């Protein structure tokens, strides 16, 4: 149903967002970079279409969108990746303002032209033709980003494929060359992932990005999914193993910690429980202000309470096991924690996650008892705190006795044993076969493993 609402409101939303007034803060920042807007600034708190010339209001609206594609405070998925609230992490605004200096509103242009720049002697001036103002804000913003890339010397080439095959100067060679069309696609995707525009507009800009990516590059982009495992050890060292022959050293953390991947972020729980858990971007360095609900819950605890945490997983439905209580986020709409006491089901001390299918994207979580008994759990729905449990399974008890962490990446399953060795696990029916992995680095003293999935375009 949501899809249909999105579709219906695509155009309405464009109109609504285009007519909303601009807060003084935004216009002031725009005027800081583009002095042409200074004349519109007054004592008002916000500026509407009637307060400015119509065309300059539209330019300001698209600049406002570009500016806010880079939130000062990233709006991370506060529910630990179990709700999807993507952000644009890239600083498009500084990219844009480092190149564009002023705008020239043209009363006429060469037939059909929307906007243009003079790359080498243009002085950062973007010429906007009458047609430019016929488009909605997201198209205007994307067009302006496209144009500023020409200031860097990127020009177009003849299309050798796609719907415009044969057209001269209508394509770029490939998306990874970072030419004007690559920037357009990146800007559109930035908008599609931003919280600044409506869901309906996001659907439209997402589709525009896809069509442009597959139409405007002579080398058709390909999507590749790179999977790897992030291994952290007792010395604080982190390695990224490509599941084959390569293990790249990533960094050494100040304090040894368990690293968990959630959505596009890493949540890090130091072994020293006096230290708070925190979240970083994928580079393990850039701190994200909001650590997520699991980490915040953990951080709110006293040291003695923190010591009661036995296991944490961000896979599947997620879950924290504390003193035989299962804590998880089932109510994704409200972001409320479920807290279930497990005493009537047994005594559990670990959580493992097994892939539901060969893609390794969806995991089924199991609580594991000291004796290796398994108990599956699932959220009843995304709008309630109710948790459903399966039957206790004792068939794998002996195979799981020394496993501290188990998860799947791609179509393979990996585990850590009590010695800190990474092992490969193969589940067939009721039997588990396991073998120690011959890593290109020393295979010992690991304290956590995290599956990393990174889609790449090339």
């Amino acid at each position, binding site marked *: 149903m949501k*899809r*249909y*609402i999105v*579709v*219906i409101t695509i155009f309405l939303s464009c109109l609504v967002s285009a007519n909303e007034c601009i807060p003084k803060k935004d216009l002031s920042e725009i005027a800081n970079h583009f002095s042409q807007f200074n004349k519109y600034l007054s004592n008002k708190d916000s500026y509407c279409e009637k307060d400015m010339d119509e065309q300059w209001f539209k330019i300001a609206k698209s600049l406002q969108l570009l500016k806010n594609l880079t939130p000062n405070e990233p709006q991370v998925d506060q529910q630990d990746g179990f709700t999807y609230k*993507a952000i644009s992490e890239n600083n*498009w605004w500084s*990219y844009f303002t480092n190149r564009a200096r002023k705008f020239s509103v043209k009363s006429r242009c*060469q*037939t*059909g*032209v*929307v*906007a243009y720049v003079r790359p080498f002697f243009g002085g950062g001036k973007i010429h906007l033709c009458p*047609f430019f103002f016929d*488009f909605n804000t997201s*198209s205007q913003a994307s*067009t302006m980003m496209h144009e500023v*890339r020409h200031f860097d010397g990127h020009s*177009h080439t003849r299309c050798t494929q*796609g*719907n415009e095959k044969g*057209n*001269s*100067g*209508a*394509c770029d060679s490939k*998306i*990874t060359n*970072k030419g004007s069309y*690559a920037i357009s696609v*990146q800007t559109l*995707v*930035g908008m*599609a*992932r931003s919280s600044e525009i409506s869901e309906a507009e996001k*659907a*439209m800009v*997402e*589709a*525009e*990005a*896809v*069509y442009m*990516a*597959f*139409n405007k590059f002579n080398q*058709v*982009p390909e*999507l*590749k*999914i790179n999977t790897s495992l992030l291994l952290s050890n007792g010395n604080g060292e982190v390695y990224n193993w490509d599941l084959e022959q390569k293990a790249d050293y990533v960094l050494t953390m100040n304090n040894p910690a368990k690293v968990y991947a959630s959505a*596009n972020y890493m949540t890090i729980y130091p072994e020293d429980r006096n230290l708070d858990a925190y979240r970083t971007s994928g580079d393990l360095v850039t701190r994200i202000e909001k650590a997520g609900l699991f980490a915040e819950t953990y951080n709110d605890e006293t040291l003695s309470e923190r010591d009661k945490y036995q296991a944490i997983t961000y896979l599947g439905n997620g879950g924290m096991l504390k003193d035989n209580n299962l804590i998880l986020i089932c109510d994704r709409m409200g972001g409320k924690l479920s807290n279930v006491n497990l005493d009537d089901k047994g005594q559990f001390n670990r959580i493992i996650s097994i892939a539901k*299918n060969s*893609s390794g*994207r969806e995991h089924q979580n199991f609580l594991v008892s000291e004796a290796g008994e398994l108990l599956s759990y699932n959220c009843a729905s995304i709008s309630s705190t109710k948790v459903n449990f399966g039957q206790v399974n004792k068939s794998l008890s002996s195979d799981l006795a020394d496993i501290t962490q188990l998860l799947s990446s791609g179509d393979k399953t990996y585990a850590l044993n009590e010695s800190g060795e990474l092992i490969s696990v193969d589940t067939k029916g009721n039997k588990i076969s396991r073998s120690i992995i011959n890593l290109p680095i020393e295979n010992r003293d690991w304290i956590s493993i995290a599956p990393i999935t*990174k*889609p*790449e*375009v090339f």
Partner: protein
Amino acid sequence: MKKVTTFLLLGIVVGVIVGLFAKKEQTLTHSPKKFQKELQASVPRPNISLKEIKKVVTNSEATKEELLDITIAGQDYDEQDPHSFKAIQAQKQGAFKVIALKRLIETEKNIEGKLQTLNHVIMTAKDPTIQRVAQSYRESLKNGRSFFRDFKQAVGNLPIPN
């Protein structure tokens, strides 16, 4: 008497609501067999106007047949200048086709149906760009992945030029 009237009125209101929902079900769901027949028989139009595409794609009750018709139609595009109004309109037209394709595939309930429809689009779409989008979409589906989500993440992983 008053109670009877109220009851009757309530019955009428409920009847109208049920009828409306039933009508909606009728337009949005199809017999898979019937659609497969229509899928095989569908012939792509050489081109289609942006206005016509908008009309279908923004209609929440568009049928699968209508969405397929839009998806595999040719492009109404003859513009040479990449920065022109027409070029951007053509880009919009292509984007609407992508939305139509996405909606079309999402209406299929199982993976076999999705792959079959994508295969058909790959083989018949007049717009080569839509064929390529469908190919990539098909690869993602085969690997149990979400094409649109992976696409956004992959592009998002591209560095911003200095």
